[in-house]
């Protein structure tokens, strides 16, 4: 019985960990999106492709805004300058289990 309970615990823990995207993956996804995108909308689209199937949330903010309460624990951000007009936005991607 002890073994059964312990293995159930390990299965639950493993499932929880595998459901999350690692911080490194999210950083790389944001870096990749930045290299290929022209504006915040495209960064968002590329992030959705790169992080497909994982738990993530994306915020597009003005320079003085912050994410009040991100639902996911690890957040990475980038300054995105729109070539058409030079408008600056902050794109934040949060990941986690």
């Amino acid at each position, binding site marked *: 019985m002890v073994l059964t309970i312990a293995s159930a615990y390990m299965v639950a823990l493993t499932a929880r960990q595998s459901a999350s995207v690692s911080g490194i993956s999210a950083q790389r996804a*944001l870096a990749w999106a930045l290299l290929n995108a022209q504006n915040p909308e495209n960064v968002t689209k590329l992030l959705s492709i790169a992080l497909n199937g994982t738990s993530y949330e994306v915020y597009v903010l003005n320079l003085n805004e912050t994410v009040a309460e991100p639902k996911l624990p690890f*957040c990475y951000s980038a300054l995105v300058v729109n070539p058409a007009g030079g408008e600056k936005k902050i794109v934040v991607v949060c990941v986690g289990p």
Partner: protein
Amino acid sequence: MIGVIALAATLIALLSIYSLQPKIAYERGHLQAAQLVHLARACMAAGSCSRDRLAELVRDLYRFNQTYPMRMFVTYVERAPNPGPAQGVNPITVTNETVFEVETLRTLFTGNPEEVRITVTTVSERTDRVYSKRVGDRTYTMVEVKVTYAHSYSSPFFNVTLCPSLRALDAVADLKRLGKCDWLVGAPLELSKPVGANRYRYDLRDEFGIPVPVLFTAGMPPKG
């Protein structure tokens, strides 16, 4: 036995009710280098990109990082993206290079900063073909030019080459993609600017909004 069962049950219960607290992750490396590439491109797209303008964008990055910290390596603008002189006669090559110096962890040991380098290369090669094109009530003399256009990003963290797509700013130019970075451009002579002896420049834009200079000579193309 009962104690072990109780402990295991408690662990499972804790796992199910454990709530996550937001944390800010500190990032260097890939993301910072990609961020610098993005800023250099945005600066080029704005038209005339001076070293001061680029340094201002980097300062914005520091300022914004105070709001949402992305721990950064110390960064200096070593070279702003000013197109170098046109080289060659046919083909004509224009290279536009931006260099950031970054004090990475390796710098602590070697004393030498590492580079994030953004190189934008345009190679224009005139073909023998010249043709007429009627748009509205005007007829244009179209000069056919083979253009090879590429972005190359090198950094301690990645080396990437992109072949951005090109677009014309008017409805006159002809544009056809031949390969990944290769294009066939029909440049209207009447809408091109003379730049030096017998040489013309016609500007396209890439997908990032950066001006792409298509350079060609009038008359039959010289060889070499």
